[in-house]
């Protein structure tokens, strides 16, 4: 044959025709998310699969940042659906929008509404954990039951903290604990005690509760010790939290459900106390369910199930109550042992800066650091620079992502134009170059998930052109 013409150069120059300029690697483990922006390769990934099967990340968590309206919850919904298909149970503990209720409903899961007049949570209900403890029995059951007690105690303490806007005293905690023990022994099995029952116990002052107050037989000393707590509990009953937390649980989390969503979207945004309380209650209940499921699996009574929690609009619960930061903080450190993957979603890193105390701010910043997988939708340049200090972004990555948060040209025509960053994400794992993806949603999902619903009213009747991406 006639060979092609050869060119000669020193290796210092010939390497300029670099054959690795186009990437060929794209992760193929996990839920299919979309196409690589440059190579067009299908990209798959979710924190659970990358942790358990691919071993790309050391803890099953994801942190997502991005401006509103760029499709963050669409991507998370895809993960929920994909994981649900593999048998993982999505748990949305406190859906504020609601972005996930429709998905969970479509998956045949349980949607529990919390809000005034919509549904409540009985914070004294031992829930799935109590039921599991009874089912397991023996030593393991006793341990689980003790843990249930602690969980209920923490929950009531958290409510009191929210009402008072400061922490509870130590002796009040012990009073509360004794009262709860007494109440549990007094309540017939099969019925959960209610908050008014607790108030009644404290009003009555049985021996066991009196013992921890050091009343020495004097009624006045007992009253002095319990009155502030008594007052706070009455405050919960009659105050803004009353009808939501004092009644019977409207629905309990079903351990066998394929997905669970605690919908707290009916609570007004200004109603921070109720939001915080509802979030905490949802968390307490949800994590209790996870613990119960694992305890049952440990005992060999049910097959092992994994869970995936979603914390969307992270800034709201973070601001709502100090206690939530600690819970999430604990979750980010313990999720491996809890058998729980999680996705935390917020707008910008500044959300962490707006927290009340320095300690909370530091903790909230740690969420990004510890996340196994960081996903960015469009973000302003300055945000990206800051994020770059935490996760290590290259200048090109910063430029790419910041270009997604600006609008297309002003001259763009009509309703066809989408924001440039819609459905585009950059996935960062450790020091590897980021993977830019374009999420492509299916028709089924498009019908399922549309958070711009209220903007659709004036559009032409055929909603086909209407896009499914949304914040």
């Amino acid at each position, binding site marked *: *044959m006639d060979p092609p013409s050869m060119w000669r150069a020193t*290796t210092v120059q010939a390497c300029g025709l670099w*054959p690795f300029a186009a990437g060929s690697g794209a992760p193929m483990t996990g839920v299919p998310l979309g196409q690589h922006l440059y190579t067009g390769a299908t990209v798959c990934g979710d924190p659970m699969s990358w942790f358990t099967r691919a071993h790309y990340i050391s803890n099953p968590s994801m942190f997502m940042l991005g401006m509103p309206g760029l499709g963050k919850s669409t991507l998370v919904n895809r993960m929920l659906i994909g994981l649900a298909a*593999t048998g993982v149970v999505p748990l949305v503990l406190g859906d504020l929008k609601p972005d996930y209720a429709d998905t969970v409903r479509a998956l045949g899961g349980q949607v529990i509404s919390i809000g005034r007049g919509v549904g409540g949570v009985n914070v004294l209900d031992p829930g799935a954990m109590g039921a599991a403890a009874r089912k397991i029995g023996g030593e393991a059951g006793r341990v689980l039951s003790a843990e249930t007690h602690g969980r209920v105690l923490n929950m009531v303490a958290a409510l009191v903290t929210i009402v008072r806007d400061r922490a509870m005293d130590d002796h009040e905690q012990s009073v509360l604990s004794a009262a709860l023990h007494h109440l549990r022994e007094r309540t017939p099995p099969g019925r959960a005690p209610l908050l008014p029952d607790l108030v009644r116990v404290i009003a009555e002052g049985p021996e066991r509760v009196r013992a921890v107050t050091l009343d020495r037989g004097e009624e006045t000393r007992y009253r002095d010790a319990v009155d502030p707590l008594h007052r706070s509990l009455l405050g919960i009953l009659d105050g803004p939290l009353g009808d939501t937390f004092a009644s019977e649980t409207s629905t309990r989390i079903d351990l066998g459900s394929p997905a669970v969503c605690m919908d707290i979207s009916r609570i007004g945004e200004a109603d921070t106390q109720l939001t915080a309380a509802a979030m905490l209650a949802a968390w307490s209940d949800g994590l209790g369910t996870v613990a119960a499921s694992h305890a049952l699996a440990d005992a060999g009574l049910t097959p092992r199930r994994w869970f995936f929690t979603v914390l969307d609009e992270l800034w709201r619960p973070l601001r709502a109550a100090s206690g939530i930061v600690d819970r999430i903080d604990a979750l980010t450190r313990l999720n491996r042992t809890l058998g729980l993957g999680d996705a935390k979603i917020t707008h910008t890193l500044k959300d962490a800066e707006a927290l009340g105390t320095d300690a909370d701010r530091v903790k909230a910043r740690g969420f990004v650091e510890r996340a196994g997988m960081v996903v960015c939708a469009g973000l302003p340049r300055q945000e990206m620079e800051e994020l770059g200090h935490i996760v290590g972004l290259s200048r090109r990555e910063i430029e790419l992502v910041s270009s997604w948060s600006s609008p297309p040209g002003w001259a763009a025509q009509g309703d066809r134009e989408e924001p440039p960053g819609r459905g585009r994400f950059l996935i960062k794992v450790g020091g590897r170059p980021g993977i830019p993806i374009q999420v492509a949603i299916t028709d089924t999902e498009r019908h399922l998930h549309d958070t711009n619903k209220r903007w659709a009213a004036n559009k032409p009747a055929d909603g086909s052109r209407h896009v499914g991406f949304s914040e």
Partner: protein
Amino acid sequence: MSTETATADPTYGNWRRPRRPGLGPFGLVGTIGLFGGLVLDLLVSLISLQFTLVVIVIQCTFLLPLAVRTQDGRNVYQLTALRIGWFRRKAKGVTTYVSGPLSQRPGGKFRPPGLLSRVRVTEGRDAYDQPFGVLHHPSRNLYTIVLGCEPDGGSLVDPDQIDNWVAAWGHWLARLSSEPNLRGASVIVETAPDTGTRLANEVLPRIDPGAPAAARAVMEEVVQRYPTASSEMHTYLTLTYGMPTGQKRKSEDIIADLAIRIPGLLDGVVRAGGGPAAPLSAENIAEVVRVAYDPAVAADVLEARAVHGGTGLEWDDAGPAAAIEKVNAYQHDSGVSRTWMLTLAPRGTVRAQVLRGLLEDAPGTRRKRVALLYRPIDPATSARIVEADRRAAQFMATSRRGMVQARAANEVRAAEQTAVEEATGAGLVEFSLMVTVTVDSDAELEDANVTVRNLLAGARLLMRPADRMQAAAFSCTLPVGILPWEHTLMPRELKEAL
């Protein structure tokens, strides 16, 4: 030319066509012919003037075609030889290849055709106990190993990191010059539309039997729809080693020798931004070749790999069942391919990302392979070449005057730079580029033509279709270590002289 190494975004260039010895376009043989002719003319003119004229006319008719050259330096004789070769092969009927049990070929196997027909494949184990395939080309006694890698690409990486990678790639190339007996290397980047098999095998078997119907529906929809928008990319590196003349060595020794080199080579590839790299087993090589000849089976190969852990395909069955070579296309099992060969390397200077567009997936093609071929030059020869080039440039610059001076000065500067780079440890390498595009039918070839032309414009390259040798050119872009300069009609040294 990356003279300022401190700049943020270095550029590369200063590649030149190897200088032909001799006068102008004549080449060595032409020059000898020219001077010999002149002497002859003088001698003949002593006898008869008319006869001398006749001799001069005859000389001109023979020498003129040597002086007329195409852009990539081929003269009329070479072009004619190619055509004659083509007509001869066509007359003999070797442009059509039929294999398999029903063919007349012995063995009843689907052996790869043409340059690959005599290749034998064995397997060894490297230092990490991974199997690696060794292709033996008995005609030239060459041994080839194939490495596969998965680069991250430079799209989202900072320029200084890319600069490091590219520099490491330069080191890797420089290392090739000192690799004993290495005859050539190639990097082959193959792109193809996603068959969807990989996705289906990732998603579908994992769907829980008790999964919600909606989740199952969405996942099935995804598996069905995603591949139309997706593509896949594979990067292979081949290294072809020769045997020193007069040495007879057993193939086990050779394989053991190659096995020792693999870890170091892989390490260099990883450092050059190649991503995770591993040698290809004999089965993998056969699969790649099989899929190249019959793109329609790509999905089946992936399926078999995912479900059964491997295809069990052997080299002897990796070829096409039928292939027809045409003037400007090569038809094989389920595809039609056209191959282009490099004419001009990018003029001026380029940045390291210049090939990106060419390497990335080209919509509308069934498969596309870009092969970068490297022929390392050993350090001793490099030094000689560099010095010769420098002397020649100096001579040209000092012997002429006026307008030519600027260009000559440029030449001198380039030669000096090359000399400095060579002296500070860089190797000298000859490189070339070939592109093969496979489409489904003849009708789509024209579109592919346009696509390739656009891609080449983006990469600032000039290429020509490898007409009348499409079959051979096709096998050059396969990761099997065919080095085009080893398979010429005339030995390379003689050809250069022409």
